[in-house]
């Protein structure tokens, strides 16, 4: 079955630094979504990518969908303490319409 893997599992970042988290799928995806879950909270939808090679930006967050539609990345610049949380990617395929497979997430800790 489809598997979605995220690396790294944990990311310690100094405030002000940049970092990237990666999402890799064992199968070609039709689309991919990213969510952020604050400690003690629930996942909150950030963005969806659909097109091969697509790049979208939300302020300091840059999301990219790979050309082969099997991987994605989230890059955060100038990390702030408000970026603390776990970032999940969720991949969708046409075979599993309506069901997104979540990765295990990257837990981000920001030190001042």
């Amino acid at each position, binding site marked *: 079955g489809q598997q979605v893997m995220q690396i790294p599992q944990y990311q310690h970042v100094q405030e002000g630094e940049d970092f990237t988290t990666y999402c890799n799928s064992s199968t070609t995806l039709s*689309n991919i979504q990213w969510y952020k879950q604050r400690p003690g*909270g629930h996942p909150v939808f950030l963005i*969806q990518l659909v097109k091969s090679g697509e790049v979208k930006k939300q302020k300091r967050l840059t999301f990219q969908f790979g050309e082969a539609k099997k991987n994605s990345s989230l890059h955060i610049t100038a990390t702030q303490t408000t970026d603390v949380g776990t970032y999940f990617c969720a991949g969708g395929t046409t075979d599993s319409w309506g069901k997104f497979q979540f990765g*295990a997430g990257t837990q981000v800790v920001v030190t001042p």
Partner: protein
Amino acid sequence: DAMVIQNPRYQVTQFGKPVTLSCSQTLNHNVMYWYQQKSSQAPKLLFHYYDKDFNNEADTPDNFQSRRPNTSFCFLDIRSPGLGDAAMYLCATSRDLQGARGYTFGSGTRLTVV
């Protein structure tokens, strides 16, 4: 505000005693999902409803059942909770199966089994 509401926020149940978790939504979304999330793990889809059409994941234990009496409400029934069922249970909704605008999650119910 339109939202997804889960009750209760925390639930303690006895081993083997049936328990029901509830979810309601004011978004008028067609699709409702139940996810199980254990500590530091990805949310795991248990089942979903597209309108009244129920879709069970192949690896969801028979111990887990769901009901959707109307568009707004969806329930998760655990018939005989075991210690391994202790987790956060997340309800999510989506306007349609494409989910292009993402899922809207409730705040979750944290289930403890004693």
